[in-house]
């Protein structure tokens, strides 16, 4: 039967319904601020939104979107290659290129299509892609479509990457290496200095996905490569507008002039409608704001450290270092679901992550902090976790 392979998922959904939890696709019924809303009937602190700089509800971004909708209409109704390139899209491409200090940029309709599109197009049959084992699903989807030989290197392990580049021999200098700035599930940062050094030794091209690090890392918020001081080694930077910039869409920027020709070869760019002008306008305003208000970056890191330190002090198994993504790793699926439900009832919305979306067989309570969170809100989140611990919902085996 065509549908047999979906039975496991259907059974899991039935289990969740029977337990009266909706971790996947929970409906937000009201947004009260960048950090508060009503989700599935619960008034909650939003601690699982990737809204790192708190710009999703910024009045200046909202006004920019409203003005653009009034001027341009609600949608472009076409591809960037047909009727869907408005002056707004071109302006954003110039501005995101300038933000990164390069000459070439492509704006995509989603972050997924930016990453998947670039990874499916840059290398092809007979060529090689080396990707981090914990890469995002959009990267895996892209490289699978590419037809290139796909080789995984161990997560955040430059030595393993170097070993695999050495094994490629003469093919290494045409290989595409892929890494992420901040990994989305555990919040760990790629060792880009060491990865860039491997590229310098063996050749090849380096693509970095800064989806979760743009706006968060680097002196001007360009991401992990800027923070590591290796931007000169990056051939392609991809990212999203749906996190720090609070809207939706994606981008690729590059110092290579060939990006303009590559644009016309990316199916995920060509065969989809372009972003609504209102979305582009709010993104442009958000990009201006992150340049003008660097204090937002300081605040998100203050909140990240506060949450990380608080959860660690409770003895919970969090990652090795503080990051705007703070994940609590658990081994028991049922208990993780109970914790997620208890957090919702305590007024805290976080992400529940199950394999294979998590990078191991573990389950995650994934928290993401925002510059817009107050210290009191962070303390409320920590307190909700303390109550879970008090209630015996964390197994001692799961303690850090």
């Amino acid at each position, binding site marked *: 039967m065509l549908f047999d392979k979906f039975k496991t998922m259907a059974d899991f959904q039935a289990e969740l319904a029977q337990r009266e939890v909706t971790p996947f696709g929970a409906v937000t019924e009201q947004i009260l601020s960048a950090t508060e809303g009503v989700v599935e009937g619960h008034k909650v602190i939003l601690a699982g939104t990737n809204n790192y700089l708190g710009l999703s509800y910024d009045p200046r971004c909202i006004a920019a979107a409203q003005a653009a909708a009034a001027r341009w209409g609600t949608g472009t109704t076409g591809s960037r290659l047909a009727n869907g390139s408005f002056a707004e899209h071109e302006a954003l491409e110039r501005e995101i290129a300038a933000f990164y200090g390069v000459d070439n940029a492509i704006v995509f309709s989603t972050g997924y299509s930016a990453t998947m599109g670039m990874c499916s197009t840059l290398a092809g049959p007979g060529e*090689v892609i080396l990707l981090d*084992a914990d890469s995002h699903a959009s990267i895996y989807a892209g490289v*699978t479509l590419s037809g290139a*030989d*796909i*080789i*995984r290197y161990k997560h955040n392990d430059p030595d393993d990457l170097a070993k*695999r580049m050495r*094994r*490629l021999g003469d093919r290494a200098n045409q290989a595409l290496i892929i890494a992420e700035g901040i990994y989305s599930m555990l919040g760990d940062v790629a060792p880009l200095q060491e990865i860039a050094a491997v590229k310098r030794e063996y050749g090849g091209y380096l693509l970095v996905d800064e989806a979760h690090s743009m706006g968060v890392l680097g002196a001007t918020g360009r991401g992990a490569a800027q923070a590591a001081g290796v931007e000169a080694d990056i051939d392609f930077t991809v990212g999203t507008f749906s996190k720090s910039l609070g809207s939706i869409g994606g981008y690729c920027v590059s110092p290579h002039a060939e990006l303009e020709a590559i644009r016309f070869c990316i199916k995920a760019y060509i065969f989809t409608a372009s972003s609504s002008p209102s979305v582009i306008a709010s993104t442009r305003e958000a990009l201006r704001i992150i340049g003008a208000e660097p204090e937002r970056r300081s605040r998100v890191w203050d909140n990240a450290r506060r949450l990380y330190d608080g959860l660690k002090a409770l003895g919970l198994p969090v990652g090795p270092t503080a990051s705007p993504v703070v994940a609590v790793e658990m081994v028991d699926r049922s208990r993780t679901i109970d914790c997620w439900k208890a957090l919702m009832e305590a007024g805290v919305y976080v992400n529940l992550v199950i394999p294979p979306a998590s990078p*191991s*067989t573990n389950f995650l309570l994934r928290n993401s902090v925002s510059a817009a969170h107050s210290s009191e809100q962070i303390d409320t989140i920590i307190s909700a976790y303390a109550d879970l611990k008090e209630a015996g919902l964390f197994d001692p085996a799961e303690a850090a």
Partner: protein
Amino acid sequence: MTEYRAYLDFLYSTLESHNKKNLELTESTHLVADIGLSSLEVMEFIEKIEDHFDISIPLNILPDVNTIGELAKKVQELNP
């Protein structure tokens, strides 16, 4: 070039620690359906092969590999 038999022997010996059902391993033994390797165990097993022969096995050849014999042939092709 290493003989096909040598690849098979290496795969047999490496799989022994995963052979919890004590199956008699042959070329036609299925890695997942018979031995029951999990996806994580498959990746660990592949890594052992890669390090032993100092090769990288592309992910995209794995969907065509089901049995020990098929894997031995692929590894031989990748290690000229």
